[in-house]
């Protein structure tokens, strides 16, 4: 891929999403947990008068659960045509915006589990670290293979 990626940490892992999908970053979101919902959903939050569903990204990517979070932020995503409801993802903290070029992209390592690979579009190699770029379409889209379809 080419373009800007917003990087952020989830359970200590550096991940990223296409910045064109990002609407806003919120700090310490005061969300309402929804009892009885799937574990991938953290809860609902009021974002400028709109009810936004916050997803527990760590759970979606099957990262080990952290008992205690020092800080928490949320990324509110732009809504897309095929899913009219607003969504956001819960992250630990935002990082830098990275300009990604095609030569920085690496194929997915086979050591990653399917839980991760199905939602990761590529691995971007930086000087001393790697960023897992997430495929938001697969996580929140309306398609047959998206997470939303299964939960």
């Amino acid at each position, binding site marked *: 891929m080419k373009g800007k990626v917003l990087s952020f940490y989830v359970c200590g892992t550096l991940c990223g999403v296409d910045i064109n999908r990002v609407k806003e970053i919120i700090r310490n979101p005061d969300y*309402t947990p929804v009892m009885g919902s*799937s574990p991938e959903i953290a*809860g*609902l939050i009021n974002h400028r008068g709109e*009810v936004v569903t916050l997803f527990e990204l760590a759970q979606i990517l099957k990262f080990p659960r952290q008992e205690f979070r020092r800080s928490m932020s949320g990324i509110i995503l732009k809504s897309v045509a095929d899913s009219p409801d607003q969504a956001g993802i819960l992250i630990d903290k935002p990082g830098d915006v990275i300009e990604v070029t095609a030569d920085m992209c690496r194929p997915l390592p086979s050591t990653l589990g399917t839980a991760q690979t199905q939602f990761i579009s590529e691995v971007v190699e930086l000087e001393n670290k790697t960023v897992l770029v997430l495929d938001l379409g697969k996580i929140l889209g309306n398609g047959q293979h998206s997470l*939303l379809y299964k*939960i």
Partner: protein
Amino acid sequence: LESAVTKILIVKAANKVYGIIVDSICDREDVLVKPLPQYLRNCQVYSGATILGDGKVAMVLSLDNLVPTSALSVAEEQLEALRPNEEIIQTLRPTLQEVLLFKCSGPEIFTASMPLVARMEIIQPGQIQMIGNKEYVKCGGNVLRVIRPEEYLPVQRCLSERSKLYLIVPKFVTKPLGIVVEKTLGTIHSEIKIDEEHLQAKGLLGTTVINNTITLMVDLHELIELAAPEYLMTINDREGLTV
């Protein structure tokens, strides 16, 4: 934190009353319920979400879905089958009851359970108008359908020469309706014991003795069911009424 007090929110769904055990009750607020995001479409216990005055999101529970989700329905239907007519329970229970004593055109003295009566109206016989085979009266800006108990109960009907009549307006009707009585003898608080042995007719609960006089206990609900069933509340409506 374990509290010695259990707080139960009493709620009404369909025609049943349920209790929900809650930790605490925050407030009562009029809210605009927003539809649930499609991501939560499997959470059927919620009917939506709402944004409260302080900006927090609150989930709105759907009682209609909460009850089947909690698998309460079976027990509740059994209960329904076991539950006899509420009014009968009330009248069989030998406790102090407030009853209205009245007479129609015949010599019989009737009683009716006062908690079922919304109000009384005084009318003149000339005000009653026949439309078709039904009688109506215009009373204080309202048109009321009037029914005469003598037409439906096994009692005497005499020619009336009274200059005023009374209307008993019951609580559980959906449209204005009055029951014509000729004379009211006041209300008393008494221990009512219904005797069902002698008089069994639709519209009557039985006889009861008040001040050494045999009176006929009218089942107002059944009487209206006989005379004008379309004026009765449905079961659902009736549950909302505290008798």
